[in-house]
């Protein structure tokens, strides 16, 4: 890890009318670091994630990102063209429901290749080669390259969505409940895969989840949210093993033990 953070978030708030989405969130994220945002549903996790990833305009605060040239840019003072370019090259966004992040009616190969074509790749053979390489990295058999995601299982779709996001070598990936809706054994494989990829590629990631096991396995640091506020923030193992806030203690102790 280097000395300069990748993302600086200060005072981010989002109000829906008089209701609080999230309020006064501050943190910094370093390259290669995985941050988990946990909390019960309705606690503002997804609102915060959307504010950070420019999918939703925050009411107040600033989000600064260190571009590849080393300069920090405020995401909300960039032009829309720059923001969208950033989103499809240097960033990834993994949706909870793969259908939101994939083009369901084009083949797996084209799904992975879309980002490459968007940044000007015009050689079919090379695009296909890269696509099949990425399919095998996410454990999808390469003979499925011409099949549509409709013909894939939920776990395969989610892995395809991850491949589609990582193909341009992003530095920061946002994930919204990446394992939600998958059965437990598939979840375990996906988490294993994700952990490997994040380690190998040195990705920074922000993972929103209500599943503390996911946070434990994937993340280095953790933020606990309640009613739009960040109530506890620290190293994952510290927060899970020694929760300080009463709510966090309740939250951690409510994990079902089999």
């Amino acid at each position, binding site marked *: 890890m280097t000395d300069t953070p990748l993302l600086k978030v200060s005072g981010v708030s989002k109000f829906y009318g008089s209701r609080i989405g999230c309020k006064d969130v501050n943190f910094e994220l370093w390259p290669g670091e995985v941050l988990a945002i946990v909390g019960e549903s309705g606690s503002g996790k997804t609102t915060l994630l959307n504010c950070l990833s420019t999918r939703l305009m925050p009411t107040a605060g600033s989000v600064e990102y260190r571009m590849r040239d080393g300069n920090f840019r405020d995401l909300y003072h960039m032009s*829309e*063209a720059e923001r*969208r370019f950033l989103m499809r090259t240097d960033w990834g966004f993994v949706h909870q429901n793969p259908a939101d992040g994939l*083009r369901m009616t*084009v*083949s797996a*190969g*084209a799904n992975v*290749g*879309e*980002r490459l*074509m*968007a*940044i000007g790749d*015009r*050689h*079919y*053979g090379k*695009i*296909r080669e890269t696509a099949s390489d990425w399919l095998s990295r996410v454990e999808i058999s390469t003979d499925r*390259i*011409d099949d549509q995601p409709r013909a894939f299982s939920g776990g395969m779709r989610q892995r395809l969505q991850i491949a589609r996001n990582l193909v341009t070598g992003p530095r920061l990936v946002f994930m919204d409940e990446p394992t939600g809706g998958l059965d437990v054994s598939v979840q375990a494989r996906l988490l294993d895969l994700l952990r490997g990829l994040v380690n190998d590629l040195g990705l920074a990631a922000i993972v929103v989840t209500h599943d503390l096991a996911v946070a434990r396995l994937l993340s280095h640091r953790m933020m606990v949210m309640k009613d739009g506020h960040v109530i506890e923030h620290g190293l994952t193992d510290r927060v899970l093993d020694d929760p300080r806030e009463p709510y966090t203690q309740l939250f951690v102790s409510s994990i079902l033990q089999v």
Partner: protein
Amino acid sequence: MTDLATYNFAYLDEQTKRMIRRAILKAIAIPGYQVPFASREMPMPYGWGTGGVQVTASIIGPEDVLKVIDQGADDTTNAVSIRAFFQKVANVAVTTHTSDATIIQTRHRIPEQKLGENQVLVYQVPIPEPLRFLEPRETETRKMHALEEYGLMHVKLYEDIAHNGRISKTYAYPVKVDGRYVMDPSPTPKFDNPKMHMSDALQLFGAGREKRIYAVPPYTEVVSLDFEDYPFEIQKFEQDCALCGAHGVYLDEVVLDDKGGRMFVCSDTDHCEDRREHGHVGEMLAPSKEAAE
């Protein structure tokens, strides 16, 4: 006879023509950009060329000579009725000869004969948005045009190659105009795409139902999208025209009987007639050997 119940020259009222001309001027100023306009109801159904008719009505003058083609032919229903319409409402001269026309309204084809600077080609366009079947949201496609995000267009071509081994799209083949906007050349066969590039004639596109006008000014770069390893190719025909023997032109297949009999004939009827007048003879019109014996 009273003047009361007659049409204004060229059917549309003058205010409407001004509105359409403004849209046309804007379209010419931004090659390939789809300019919205307040499309009027025309006395024909959508899909029969209401956009093209409005464009033609706005630019036609009493001195103009009009030619109308449908699938390259001057004698099909659509072409005949639009030609008759302008004869009636504008009293202009009409022709079937490409070289005599000043305005050519077309559906599907660009005439085989090279067009000149004094000619305007008006296309009837059903769906002006090249990204429509890839991205159904109009707000999103407009944004994609504005920000020049055209990766999706290549996704479509990628899919073609992945499934068919080649780019199988044969008509409405997407082009990039003047290095900026991706444009749908309407349902013209890709055979005609190269004719749009650096054309001497002004090309105007009218979509009545979708309420869009776009244009390619003369001498503008029009490049068909492709991949480096799968370059753009036009259709090739093994046969010559059965009537005039023309080679390297776009041919229609005509089924002759229910025993597999067929012929290939020029889609551009004027071009074919002109060649026959000049003594060119195709396979079917040539005196057969048996008859000669």
